[in-house]
């Protein structure tokens, strides 16, 4: 991946908290950064193409819009099938993150993680059952861990 240069970093710093709510937001940014507007737009498009920006849009506060149940569903599936199964589970609409992670036997037998958000725990349980259906006979063990408290959430910010 090509490294980000200083101008990219300045753009990221200026936009990571949000875009200006002006009719020409990229022009407003360009003025703030003393850059040509075309360059601001070209660089943002390039970061989108490279996946440095995942998407541009509204970021809902999921607790405030009613998604208060967040369950980390974890599964013990055979390692030789985890990629195929992870791809399928990752495509399910209720799954926000899906990863293969290492086991820590004997305490932690699970190697497939799928984060599910719902309005209630019953929603999350129903989605976990749907994941179980997709995984079928590959499931050797499963659990759902609910978050009970947020202890720290600083988010990830590029430091200036």
């Amino acid at each position, binding site marked *: *991946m090509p*490294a980000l240069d200083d101008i990219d970093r300045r753009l990221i710093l200026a*936009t*990571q*908290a*949000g*875009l200006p*709510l*002006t*009719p*020409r*937001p*990229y*022009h407003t940014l360009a003025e703030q950064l003393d850059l040509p*507007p075309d360059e601001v*737009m070209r660089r*943002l498009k390039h970061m*989108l193409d*490279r*996946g*440095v*920006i*995942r*998407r*541009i*849009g*509204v*970021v*809902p*506060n999921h607790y*405030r*819009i*009613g998604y208060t149940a967040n369950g*980390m569903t974890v599964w013990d599936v055979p390692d030789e099938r985890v*990629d195929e199964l992870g*791809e399928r589970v*990752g*495509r399910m609409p209720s799954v*926000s*993150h*899906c*990863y*293969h*992670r*290492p086991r*820590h036997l004997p*305490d932690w037998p699970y190697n497939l993680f799928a984060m599910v*958000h719902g309005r209630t725990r019953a929603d999350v349980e129903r989605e976990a059952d749907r994941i179980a259906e997709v995984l079928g006979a590959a499931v050797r063990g499963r659990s759902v*861990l*609910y*978050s*009970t408290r*947020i*202890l*720290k*959430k*600083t*988010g*990830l910010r*590029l430091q200036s």
Partner: protein
Amino acid sequence: MTETERAVINRLQGGFPVCERPFLEAGEKLGLSEDELIGVIRGLLDQGLLSRFGPLYHAERLGGALSLAAMKVPEAEFDAIAERVNAFPEVAHNYARDHALNMWFVLATETPERRRAVLREIEAATGLTVYDMPKITEYFVGLHFAV
């Protein structure tokens, strides 16, 4: 929440255009004028229904690696241990979860070496074993919340 606010949340979680008048272009698809769309987004931000409006960056492609770790923390010491873990600037998120492994935190570190070093420092600061769970493969990250 109004129907218009609902439509903006449901249909504008991605795809906001990069062009001279993006609110005009995005508003056309939603049947809103440029000013109306700006007003709706401002209102959603003011009500706290949005945490942000703008680009969502891929942390790892900005040069930082994220990794998950967990600990079994005795209930009586839970708050004190949380304080010691949270004191590490590399700890970006930390959640209590209902499991024997009851503390789960995300580390943002630049390299795997740094991740392992911070985990050793957390073990030293807490006297507890850290279960290191870096991702082996990412299958999907992204979420669309419908309201």
